């Protein structure tokens, strides 16, 4: 039995310890916002925060999570009626096309802004390794700059 928290709720999992967090979230906890893209940690569609750091859920074995804190896209917003600045910026810049990769993108961008509240284009290029097949990168870049501005307004 592995106990940890997901979006500030205590959870437990008593299946195989080598099950990737991705499938635990999706099949067992029915948190389907975290997406399956490649299974080898290359595309970032499954990006979640573990103890505040962006990690690939598809290559994170659930056995490594005992006592740790997982945040998924469903838990990123401070409340139902108040979105995270990255989410707001994503809507305002009209980023999504098919939208499938965007949860991972947003989790990756939220981490970037946490460590670097005012990233340059180069900083964004260096951090945003997630893949988007629709090619929303131009608007992702704009949205991260916009979110950076929103964060500074809040402060």
């Amino acid at each position, binding site marked *: 039995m592995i106990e940890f928290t997901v979006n500030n709720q205590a959870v437990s999992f008593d299946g195989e310890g080598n099950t990737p967090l991705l499938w635990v979230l*999706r*099949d067992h906890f029915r948190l389907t916002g975290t997406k399956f893209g490649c299974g*080898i940690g290359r595309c970032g*569609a499954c990006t979640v925060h573990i103890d505040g750091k962006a990690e690939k859920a598809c290559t994170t074995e659930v056995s490594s999570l005992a006592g740790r804190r997982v945040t998924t896209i469903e838990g990123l917003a401070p409340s139902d009626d108040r979105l995270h600045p990255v989410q707001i910026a994503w*809507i305002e810049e009209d980023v999504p096309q098919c939208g*499938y990769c965007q949860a991972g993108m947003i989790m990756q961008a939220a981490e970037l802004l946490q460590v670097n509240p005012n990233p340059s284009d180069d900083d964004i290029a260096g951090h945003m390794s997630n893949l988007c097949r629709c090619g929303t990168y131009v608007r992702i870049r704009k949205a991260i700059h916009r979110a950076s501005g929103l964060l500074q307004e809040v402060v």
Partner: protein
Amino acid sequence: MRPAHSQPAERVDRGRRRFLVGGLTATGGFLLGVPLAHLNAAAATDATGGKIGFFIEIKPDNHVVIGVAQPEIGQGVRTSMPMLVAEELDVEWSKVSISQMPLGIVKTADGFTWKYGGQGAGGSTSVSDNWEFLRGVGATARHMLKDAAARRWGVPIQSCRTEPGVVICDALNERLGYAELALDAAALPIPDEPPALKDPSEFRIIGQATRVVDARDIVTGKARYGIDAELPGMRYAVIRRCPYLDGDVESLDDSAARKVPGVLDVFRIEGPKPGEPYLILATGVAVVATSTWAALEGRKALKVTWTRGPHAQESTDAFWNQAGELLSGEGQVVRNDGDFGQALGSAKQVVSARYQVPFVNHAPMEPQNCCADIREASAHIIAPTQMPSGASRAVAAVTGLPRENIHVEMTRVGGGFGRRLTNDYVAEAAMISKKIGAPVKLQWSREDDVRHDFYRPSGLHELRAGLDGEGHITAWTHRLASAGKYYRRADVKPEEQYAAELYVDDFPANIIQNLRVEWFEVPSGVPRGSWRAPAHTANAFAVQSFVDEVAHAAGLDPLQLRLSLYGESRELPYEQHGGPTYNPFRLSRLLSHVAERIDYARPRPPGRAVGIASHFTFGGYGAHAVEVVVGGNGELSIERIVAAVDCGLVVNPLGVTAQLEGGTIDGLSTALNLEITVEKGQIQQSNFHNYRLLGLKDVPVDFETHILPWGDTPTGMGEMGLPSLAPALTNAIFNASGVRIRKLPIKDQLRKALA
């Protein structure tokens, strides 16, 4: 990629508006849609409570729900389709929400017809095909609301007008909200004559920058894709498919797999025999389990050996050799204008080049998946599909069930690009559900998706032009040896296979008088299908590269040569998809625009240069200008991209911009790095480590898009932003480095050439 070509089409009922009825919702709202009597049994008992089938629902609180019949694959139809309805209905866009409609087909004496109009995402047709129809739906509802108000006030309907959400009679100084009229309107007959539509100058919604309607759901993880669907009591399944093209299971030892915790069943899945049409792609072994991970672990524990099949000797090198040999002979002449041979013989200068375009994988971010519940007399399918009628046909083929008893629900789709025009994964899920007698969710891995696809056809293009010594092209030929996408299609005759590879009215047909187009079939066991802008991607690369090569050989400027060939504004015949005519001047207009934006004429230092290209795709027009720097060792830096599109009247500028940005990046990604290769009858690539999609870091910051509207009707937009990018890029590379890239993808060719 037009649905009618890719699948036997449903017969479209041109009088589909006659299906419309007004009605009352349970909560006292007004419903305009299709009567329940037209719905099949499965749909009518669906949990959505009889709301299925509506186009418009006006709620008592004045909110409006608009049904979308088309699949949303990221092309933005869940935003653009309702905009058409809302415009003519005359409501505030902020009061509109959206509901996805399921597949709607109606059994007739001689087959099936559409209930809500054609449903499918292919060929960039959603906006253009529904432009009149969906505005007509909105106008019909508005007419009925006005009629209801006029009767209540005892005035002629002509004295009533609307403002968003209200009917107004100026003479009486009266106004009533739509919701207050809903009860009355629901009882009125549909007007016999379709009401007049607005003049574009009156549009309040069409043409406005409108954000993706599902954006909030997407950014909070609530949007539902196929992979997120569930059926009560469902099992999870994966399939180990034969890695050899048309190979088979030789031996299977599933003893270890069956011991994996959670594994419930293991059995063979029969694929098509070599050469047969594809219902599914390959023979394989299915593993059914209590979770996705258990199924994947079970699959890992399978011990399978395979027979290598009839294509065991196939390789990419052999493919190119064979294509080259074919081009030295005579092919199928599919267009022959004037006297090409005579014109070439008397030319003062002849230019010739060959271009190579590889197989590529669709690689949508959401791997294939499908939920299927096959019962004795009915079936329920939830699938991310571009072609829900194809899903219905696939399930009928697997189960023998009558199609009217197969209920197909569409989810948001995590990318289409043509992959999900084919419903092989739906057929597989149906096979598994039927076998186990329980609902199932079939999940493909990324490896499954890269190794088993209907790849974009690969081909070798030979172009040759003759010039008269004064800079006029007098003869032109395009000869293509390719593995055609109509491979193994039961409904396409051998002599018609070329039609998916070469669109014979494409530029420069009807412009260069002596013109010959020839096709050669290269045998291959690689499955092929429609990949975004199908043959346009390959042909635009070959033709637009060659125009530059001709210009350089003749000492002409590539932009001026194009402008003089495209000529004055006029319609030229175009019998393929996107016709019946096209106007090459619209390409000139775009080219002039991107050339000006990128400062085409400005001299640049050695190693830095721009390239341009333009192409007409399925009714829309695109052009690109790209500025690159090529370093002394062949390092390529893409400094700037200017993209422009003319898609007629613009319905949603944000949607058009997204498609243009995305299409351009798709073009860049594919041109730079993407190819599928074959060795010993097996696909060599397997995941994103060796099929490397472009990342954000490789997209230049200096990236601008321009929309140049034209006329008062829209064309599609899903595919037009892609084809001209690759040749604009390789033309720029040549201008910067002197290295002509004639083989895609570019990969490390520049480094090798300049080392």
